[in-house]
């Protein structure tokens, strides 16, 4: 019997999982497969993805990346026109590759990314690649340019599956044989920001682990230099990818973004693959570090114990005073949303509405993190897969009370119209400055994200004159 006066008989919390029940989408959460494939491609050094489709499939995606990172990334198009729709567009792939090879002498990788139109037309990409390889060999006998076929019709999946597909195809093209063991650890962090990549590198350095991050997007945050050099490109090299077959293991941090490549390396080269929960929050980061320690035999250093302690110390100032019982809706990539939901529960926020997904509902339903949320939630939670942002908006219109929304910038007007504080996280976050630089994973990421949540709530208390005086003394 509780002695606090609260009732011990509670209705068990209900966690429901369902899909969008409309055919159409109002305000999509994700872009299409080719967009995700392009994102994977730009993570590779000396690589220009070639998108086989209409010009819009490339132009808008480059704009999207520029919006999020405030940087330019090079992606080429085959500029498909009517004649290709009638007679096939393989010739334009061939011409596109050769033009790229001639004008960009440092180019080493060209993922050839299909779109809905070229998949419907049925262009034979693999066959075309065989033809182009001969032409390249004849014209550039000294150069090896890897051409990876990436099948990403837009009428399947989303930019999440497109990312996964392109990473896998590039590895299948370049990592083709096992040679000398490197002793290195492959790390597939998924679709994260440069700030997260920097954090992971710091952790590996602190542990003394020689790790290669795929894709290494640290330089997606690149400087203005006196030399005017442009350094905005991925750091992952052909050699890094080729050597992935010789690693001691592959650690995947995102079930839907890169884990299939870790599996490929295991199946083809017996590089053991380990999938951990995406390291949002304390426990997930603990589990990741323990796994790294287990796989590499390296100890977790004092510095990370301290970083963890500092994070806990900061979170403890916020959780039960400001966050407890606050209702949160989260939308975005599945690995992000499920990870953030777990983190929210560590800091006493109540993630009552989770919006994930595309048409991959079957996969999401089997996700052990959803099972965990079902078992641990002490409040009602609705998980919607195949969701669009209208699912969020219409629930708010119908009276759902939320204290906080977490998600990417495409949902900004839902928060603005309903006057609900919103923390930008995920991709894209173009309406807030510099977020690509800030980690959201690991202990430091957890701390900084929680502090952003707190400051967002505080500002909202002030703007709405809602007990802002609480902060007179804190």
């Amino acid at each position, binding site marked *: 019997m509780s002695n606090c006066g609260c009732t011990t008989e509670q209705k068990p919390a209900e966690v429901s999982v369902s899909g969008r029940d*409309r*055919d*159409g*989408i*109002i*305000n*999509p959460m*994700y*872009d*299409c*497969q080719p967009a995700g494939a392009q994102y994977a491609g730009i993570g590779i050094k000396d690589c*220009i993805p*070639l998108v086989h*489709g*209409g*010009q*819009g*499939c490339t*132009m*808008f*995606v*480059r704009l*999207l*990346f*520029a*919006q999020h990172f*405030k940087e*330019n990334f*090079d*992606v*080429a*198009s085959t*500029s*498909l*026109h*009517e004649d290709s729709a009638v007679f096939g567009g393989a010739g334009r792939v061939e011409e*596109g590759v050769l*033009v*790229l090879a*001639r*004008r960009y002498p440092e180019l080493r990788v060209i993922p050839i990314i299909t779109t*809905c*139109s070229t998949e*419907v037309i049925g262009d034979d990409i693999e066959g075309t690649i065989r033809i182009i390889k001969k032409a390249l060999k004849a014209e550039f006998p000294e150069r090896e340019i890897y051409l990876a076929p990436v099948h990403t*019709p*837009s*009428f*399947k999946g989303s930019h999440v599956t497109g990312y996964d597909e392109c990473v896998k195809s590039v590895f299948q093209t370049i990592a083709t044989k096992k040679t000398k063991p490197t002793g290195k650890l492959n790390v597939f962090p998924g679709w994260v920001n440069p700030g997260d990549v920097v954090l992971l590198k710091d952790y590996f350095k602190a542990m003394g682990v020689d790790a290669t991050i795929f894709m290494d997007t640290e330089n997606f945050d*690149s400087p*203005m230099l*006196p030399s*005017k*050099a*442009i350094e905005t490109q991925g750091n992952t090299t052909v050699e890094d990818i080729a050597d992935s077959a010789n690693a001691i293991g592959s650690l995947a941090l995102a079930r839907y973004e890169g884990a299939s490549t870790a599996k490929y390396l295991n199946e083809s080269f017996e590089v053991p693959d380990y999938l951990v929960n995406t390291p949002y929050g304390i426990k997930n980061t603990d589990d990741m570090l323990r796994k790294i320690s287990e796989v590499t035999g390296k100890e977790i250093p004092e510095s990370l114990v301290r970083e963890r302690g500092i994070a806990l110390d900061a979170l403890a100032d916020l959780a039960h005073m400001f966050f407890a019982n606050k209702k949160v809706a989260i939308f975005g990539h599945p690995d992000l949303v499920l990870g953030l939901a777990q983190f929210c529960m560590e800091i006493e926020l109540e993630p009552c509405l989770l919006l994930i997904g595309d048409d991959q509902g079957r996969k999401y339903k089997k996700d052990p993190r959803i099972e965990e949320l079902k078992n641990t939630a002490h409040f009602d939670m609705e998980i919607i897969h195949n969701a669009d942002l209208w699912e969020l908006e*219409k629930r708010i219109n119908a009276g759902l009370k939320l204290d906080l929304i977490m998600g990417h*910038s*495409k949902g900004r*007007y839902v928060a603005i*119209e309903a006057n609900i504080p919103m923390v930008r996280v995920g991709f894209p976050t*173009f309406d807030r400055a510099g977020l690509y630089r800030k980690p959201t994973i690991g202990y430091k990421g957890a701390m900084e994200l929680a502090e952003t949540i707190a400051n967002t709530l505080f500002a909202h208390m002030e703007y709405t004159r809602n007990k802002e005086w609480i902060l007179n003394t804190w």
Partner: protein
Amino acid sequence: MPMVLLECDKDIPERQKHIYLKAPDEDTRDFLPIANAATIPGTLSERGCAFCGAKLVIGGVLKDTIQMIHGPLGCAYDTWHTKRYPTDNGHFNMKYVWSTDMKESHVVFGGEKRLEKSMHEAFDEMPDIKRMIVYTTCPTALIGDDIKAVAKQVMKDRPDVDVFTVECPGFSGVSQSKGHHVLNIGWINEKVDTLQKEITSDYTINFIGDFNIQGDSQLLQTYWDKLGIQVIAHFTGNGTYDDLRCMHQAQLNVVNCARSSGYIANELKKRYGIPRLDIDSWGFNYMAEGIRKICAFFGIEERGEALIAEEEAKWKPKLDWYKERLQGTKMAIWTGGPRLWHWTKSVEDDLGVQVVAMSSKFGHEEDFEKVIARGREGTYYIDDGNELEFFEIIELVKPDVIFTGPRVGELIKKLHIPYVNGHAYHNGPYMGFEGFVNLARDMYNAVYNPLRHLAAVDIRDKSQTTPIITRGAA
């Protein structure tokens, strides 16, 4: 040697026909860059697709219309959050996009049922909205879905709605331009003269080819109000679907953007005998000239002179302040097409700025005729410029500022060249008298931006000191 083969184009020599360097005493008609021609695959062109020319540029501006995009989700995602065209009803047009979220099964079995259901859902979810434009995309065009038949059925089932269909998949034409054309011609064929509105003035116009970028249409509307001119329809800035059905009622078509919307003005002339008057809405001299022409047409010259005098008294001193400081600034313009000829002479006459290079994404040869006639000697005129060409041209002309899109803006930032958003503006509106002062201010703030001078400093170089950058207070 007026047509220029750049070093970076030595492997694609056909590009020479697209780049013109204006020399003295030449009949420029002999040297017009080839335009509106197919892009070479793999060149990293800036072009978008026909679908976006219709949806994003023209249709999606309307403030009361559902934009149903029949295809995979990406075409909706990508044409959302990429424009700055507000409305006076809370920006309905910028908050939402709609997609039929086409899947593989629809590629096989057809997507018409999916479209029909999505249309009903959209009207059900947003019961106040009664107007819709349906667009095909690459895959739905390839499989041959009959969207007109579906629209007809939906209108039959819902007598209070009106639906317009646009069939221009991304692969049609060579650029956005094709989509402008398809929407223009479709609208006049199917929707003009299907509704009458109340005439409240003796002087009526359609204002055509202005998309309310950062409030352009709304600023110009204050002029029409002062002149006592009724605007029957704005095509399409801050416009409504039903106003556009009444375009046949106007006495005069005033055209700003001749490239995107000249077609409908021509058809209105042909079919309804409404004269077409082209004006330039950017720049003091041009705006005054435009107002004079419109007022002369209606015989209300004295009203026009009064308005011009009032506006000039208010804004000319501010303009002149900037002119004094921008004199001799070298500017490049890399935008869609018409802004090249709208701006080159107005920045020269009104601000003393020299335009030294211009590139058009989707202009036609008649656009180049205009811009070369208005532009300077020693200036480069480029059709469908690509990234390597931009680098080379920058070296040749060394611009102080470039008016272009945000992605290219991020690229040239690394070269210490500031950009001003030539599509969506930095802090507009830019049209009209007040607008041109805004443009001048944004250009001044870009050119006198201290950071670009600080970026050139190498702190390791002992012979250099970091300068203090001074500028005048505006």
